[in-house]
């Protein structure tokens, strides 16, 4: 106490005294006190009040709405992808609540149809304009071996259920703003506070890896619906997007067969680019090709004249472009303006950021892309799906592959919950590990029990000089076999990691020393 009074004396004598002590006395100090307490309370209280506003009360799991947690980047750089995925989720939830589902059921294993590919001798050509999938050129006869484009349209059927098990489905979606710290906070909120029954989230691998530890900590059922570099072996995570062996290998094989062995890789300088380039480099020699040079371009580079000069100097037969992000996509118009005419191969373009619609022809001419879905797939079931989507979102410009993945994943979750008779997450993970097939807009998709990944319907899309799209080759089902080769069996041995090619000795075996 004596210390306090000595302070008062000192402050009184100090010529630099705080003016409040000189003029206001205790009145001003009290105001300051109240202000400070108010400020502190204002900081602390809303975190508690917010709990009231946003948390649905925790109810017994057999009643109340089924909560689907959803995190995507609705603003920021990745919003062009995030908003598509959000619309996909909203469409799926609406259809489930209306009692509709996609055909499909539990399937033991994924079937070995991966290598059964056929060549389209004269496929129809689909216009890039609009979303009506106008056929620019009807092509030739269609038969079983020449790319059947008249598939079973009737895959959108009644579920016999209103919502899931009679409970309405609520989509709780939040905006990650391309900010990883925010992603973590939002994941924690959805899992710990809102107690969502399933989490569907993540575009970039960075975002997925930011929240996967949290998912594992709370054993949350989590679906990652994006194309990515592969390797996630996590008992709580189901990856329904395509992986490298489903896209890189088909397109590299095609390019080597058609254009020649010498390939040049241009990749974005981050994990996805590096790992996909590693796959390309390891696989090309096995089919007689060779990556003569690789260049990794930082995500911030938007001016490519030096990159173009280096490609011109190397004179490859074809160029593998794994460029991601809005800065790097400028490579295409710049290369076209510089007169670069090499055929290009990719796994990311057209199907995600719809560059063939956004850039003027002929920037993307001769681009070959092995994808499982893009808007232009000319099957009857896809036309019906696009129609349903555009009825709900008439202003959307494109439906990308990850949006389609999100769509069928949520339907798949509903089907698994109905079979399990519950939304209890541990039970549902077991139900999903039965192995499932579902008739997605892309075709038949199989969820593999041991790897938690999906076997996809893969098509090779080619973009011509007018930016119209045709599909020249298809593989009705390619498995995600890499994790199988690594011995991952999450049913027997749960794991929680991501494998990299580094841990697979097969990547280095059988490479000819040239």
């Amino acid at each position, binding site marked *: 106490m004596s210390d306090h009074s000595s302070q008062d004396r000192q402050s009184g004598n100090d010529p630099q005294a705080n003016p409040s002590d000189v003029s206001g006395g205790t009145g001003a100090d009290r105001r300051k006190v109240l202000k400070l307490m108010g400020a502190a309370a204002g900081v602390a209280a809303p975190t508690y009040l917010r709990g009231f506003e946003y948390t649905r009360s925790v109810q017994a799991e057999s009643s109340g709405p089924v909560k689907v947690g959803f995190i995507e980047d609705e603003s920021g750089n990745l919003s062009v992808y995030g908003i598509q995925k959000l619309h996909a989720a909203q469409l799926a939830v609406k259809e489930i609540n209306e009692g509709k589902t996609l055909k499909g059921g539990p399937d033991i294993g994924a079937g070995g149809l991966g290598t059964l590919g056929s060549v389209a001798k004269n496929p129809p050509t689909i216009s890039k304009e609009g979303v009506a999938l106008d056929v620019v050129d009807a092509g030739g006869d269609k038969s079983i071996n020449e790319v059947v484009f008249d598939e079973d349209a009737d895959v959108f059927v009644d579920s016999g259920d209103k919502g899931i098990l009679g409970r309405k489905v609520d989509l709780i979606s939040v905006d990650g703003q391309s900010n990883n710290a925010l992603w973590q906070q939002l994941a924690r909120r959805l899992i710990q506070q809102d107690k969502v029954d399933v989490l569907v989230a993540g575009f970039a691998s960075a975002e997925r890896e930011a929240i996967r530890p949290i998912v594992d900590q709370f054993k949350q059922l989590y679906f990652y619906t994006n194309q990515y570099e592969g390797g996630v072996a996590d008992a709580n995570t189901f990856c329904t997007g395509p992986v490298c062996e489903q896209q890189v290998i088909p397109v590299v094989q095609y390019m080597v067969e058609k254009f020649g062995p010498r390939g040049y890789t241009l990749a974005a300088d981050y994990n996805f680019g590096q790992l996909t380039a590693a796959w390309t480099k390891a696989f090309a020699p096995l089919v007689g090709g060779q990556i003569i040079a690789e260049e990794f371009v930082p995500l911030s580079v938007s001016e490519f004249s030096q990159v173009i000069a280096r490609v011109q100097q190397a004179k490859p037969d074809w160029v593998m472009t794994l460029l991601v992000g809005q*800065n790097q996509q400028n490579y295409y118009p710049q290369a076209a303006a510089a*007169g670069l005419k090499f055929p290009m191969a990719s796994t990311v373009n057209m199907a995600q950021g719809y560059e063939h619609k*956004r850039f003027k022809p002929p920037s993307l001419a001769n681009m070959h892309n092995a994808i499982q879905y893009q808007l232009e797939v000319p099957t009857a079931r896809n036309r019906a799906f696009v129609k349903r989507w555009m009825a709900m979102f008439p202003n959307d410009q494109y439906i990308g592959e990850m949006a389609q993945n999100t769509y069928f994943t949520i339907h798949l979750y509903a089907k698994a919950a109905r079979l399990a008779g519950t939304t209890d997450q541990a039970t549902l993970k077991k139900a999903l590990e039965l192995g499932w097939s579902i008739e997605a807009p892309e075709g038949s998709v199989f969820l593999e029990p041991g790897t938690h990944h999906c076997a996809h319907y893969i098509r090779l899309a080619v973009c011509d000089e007018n930016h119209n799209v045709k599909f020249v080759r298809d593989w009705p089902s390619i498995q995600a076999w890499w994790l199988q080769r690594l011995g991952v069996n999450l049913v027997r041995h749960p794991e929680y990691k991501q494998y990299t090619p580094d841990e697979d000795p097969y990547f280095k075996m059988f490479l000819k020393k040239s």
Partner: protein
Amino acid sequence: MDSFATVISVLYQFATNGAFLLLSALGLIVILGMMNIINLAHGELMMMGAYTASIAWHRGVPFWLCAILAFVVVGLFGALLERTIIRRFYGRELGALVVTWGISLILSQGALAVFGPFLPAIPIPGGSVAVGQYSFSVYWLTNIGLACLLIIGLWALYNHTTFGLQARAAMQNAAMARALGVDTGRIYTLTFSLGAGLAGFSGALFAPTVSIAPFMGQQFVAPAFITVVVGGATNVITGAVGSSLLLSLVKTPVGFLLGAFVGTVALLLAALVIIRLMPDGVSAVIQRRIDRRNRFA
């Protein structure tokens, strides 16, 4: 004959890199040189120029007119900014830096909210010219020419017009200039407007080569600032030219031999080293040399 083509290719890359740096930084340097204000909204002004060009182009306006339109629109916007906000920060450099950062946030996020994630692209005008196995974009050759013209135009503006005379007077000693009847307020507004207009013009020029999106300005922020820092504030023209040439001299061989990433790193490291050696920038060094020659003339 291949080596001849390679030499041409290297020269072309050198000129392109230099033009890119110069066009990125020009608006920033004009504002910095005059008012000692770091305009962190520079990237977003370029974005505004690109947006103006894209919207105009898709209404059928020919491209060269779009670029001029971008100059005018962003210039007017700059004048508005200056009158309302910036002029309260003269003499407070760090405050200006922070407030222009706030403005840049509002502009980029606002563009996202109003226009959505992308605007439709503009195709690159012109075709390509081949020398040996290399081909060069006519558009970039035009840009190199435009950059040179801009520099000459600025030099003429500063040294042969009344405005330039008054501007230089205000730069040297604002109080004295006012005493002599120069309306410094008007000069500052016009200068900021010019700097913003140049940023918009550059943005329009870059628009065909990049994705026209709300955050496209960010990719120019680093090169622009590095060019400005190395150039210094002593003399706008010599600083801009000297800095672009010097930095391009570093980036071109490194980038050609070792790839784009190492080129970027080399650029950043070079900037750090140059600043250590020439703290007031290239323009100060050149200015001192000119002064010394004048003194002994």
